[in-house]
């Protein structure tokens, strides 16, 4: 089994699961960070996407932001943001490195949610929107009762992309003194502990897959009946 086997041994030894630096605690940290970042990214991107999609205004801007955002390397963002989180009091929340990682991950999570929301809303049949207007619905009602439910599958797909990327990238937190599963990779690398690195990488990959599957199920549940997948 070699390297993978050593990683597996690290994972299955119970001593490595307990304590502040144990797998259980790191896993919780990783999930917390990812949830926070995905939630905030969604909270920012969803309303903007809804507005742009409904008003059919600022599409170019939204697409550009989405594309530029996707090209931003999170590690670069982290390196730039970290000093600022030390310098300014209002950015100094959480343990050292928490806020910097959160900001980098939120920036990572925004583009997929924004793009998918606006494309999803935009893609709703114009006749349906007109019919809703004809029935006397207010604009807000049209968004909430007609466009949003029909766009949900695409929006959830966007959040899914964001969440998976965030889970994989939250590993970087370990580079700026914070915790999460990245600690095993960064610390293992620092002391050339191959099994620890492999174990960390396996855990991150596993968590990303679990996230993917969870959102796939959520998508299925939230898709309105009669809609194609």
């Amino acid at each position: 089994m070699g390297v993978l086997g050593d990683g597996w041994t690290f994972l299955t030894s119970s001593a490595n699961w307990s304590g502040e630096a144990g797998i259980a605690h790191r896993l919780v940290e990783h999930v917390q960070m990812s949830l926070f970042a995905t939630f905030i990214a969604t909270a920012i991107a969803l309303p903007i996407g809804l507005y742009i999609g409904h008003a059919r205004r600022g599409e170019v801007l939204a697409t550009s932001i989405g594309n530029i955002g996707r090209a931003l390397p999170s590690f670069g963002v982290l390196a730039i943001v970290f000093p600022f989180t030390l310098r300014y009091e209002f950015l100094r929340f959480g343990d050292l490195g928490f806020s910097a990682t959160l900001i980098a991950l939120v920036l990572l999570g925004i583009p997929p949610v924004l793009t998918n929301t606006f494309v999803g809303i935009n893609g709703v049949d114009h006749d349906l929107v007109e019919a809703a207007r004809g029935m006397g619905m207010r604009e807000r009602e049209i968004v909430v009762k007609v466009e949003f439910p029909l766009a949900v599958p695409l929006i959830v797909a966007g959040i899914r992309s964001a969440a998976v990327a965030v889970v994989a990238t939250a590993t970087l937190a370990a580079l700026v003194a914070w915790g999460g599963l990245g600690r095993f990779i960064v610390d293992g690398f620092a002391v050339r502990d191959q099994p620890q690195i492999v174990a960390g990488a396996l855990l991150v990959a596993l968590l990303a897959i679990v996230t993917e599957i969870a959102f796939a199920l959520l998508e299925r549940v939230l898709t309105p009946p009669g809609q194609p997948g």
Partner: protein
Amino acid sequence: MRSSRNAVLGACLALLLVFAACGSGEDGDTDTAGPEETTGCPVDGGDLTVGVSAAFTENKLVAEMYALALENCGYTVERQFEIGAREISDPALFDGEIDIKPEYLASELVFNDPDAEPSGDPGENHMALEPLLAEHGVTALDFSPATDENVFVVTGETAKKFKLVSVSDLGAPAKNMTLGGPPECPKRPFCLIGLKDVYGIEFGDFKALDVGGPQTVEALDKGAIDVALLFSTNPVIPDRGWIVLEDDKGLQSAENLTPLVRDDVLNDAITDTLNAVSAVLTTDYLTALIAKVDQDREDLADVARSFLEDAGVL
């Protein structure tokens, strides 16, 4: 200090006048006017390849000094300064792809013998290293007083507040302090393990940052950590008026810069030339030179040359 340096500078200028013709040693044809009469340097020393331990400013600076001094002594020097790590530069030296490189005593010792226990005394490390290098036909010349070691650093404020001069002084306040350092710190004798075993010091918290890099510096500067593990030649230490805590129990191993030379090219001229460079190099000078290159963006070769000229080596 100042006046003696001026005297050296004067002597150097006088020498420079004599050797003016070989100022641009890179052009092969000017080498014929080499300084053979005063230093025992050869008329045409032939080709040498100077490499680095790894490609970072400090090591490149010292390698450039070696190269300049050797060119001044009549050799034609090829520079191999882009070698990424000791994992590459050591085999390159042992196989003869490079002839000379600046190394750090303790790191080179441990690299060649993982079981070696480097000491805080550079002489001991040098002695332990010699037989290991001899197996590969390589000799370590005199080590320089300049050393790039791990040092525990605090801000001026912290030092004043807790009356800190040496690492031992951390004994009482450490339990309420946060140490910032590289991620390997908890598992390494030079860091948390040694602090506990040698000094009996345990910090309240530890933050894994980078290896003596900008994050650790920033974290100390902004008070996110109280004590930082940095490298002794980091220019920000004098820049920000930070205090290096004296390693009074000799926890850190001596990493003095030392020229390693292949035996098949080594001769008295090379020995004298490189030893002369090592003799004038100190940690403070090296720190200041690194600042010129990294912070003031001056040309590395110019910085190395003007230092050697001021010090009277060129």
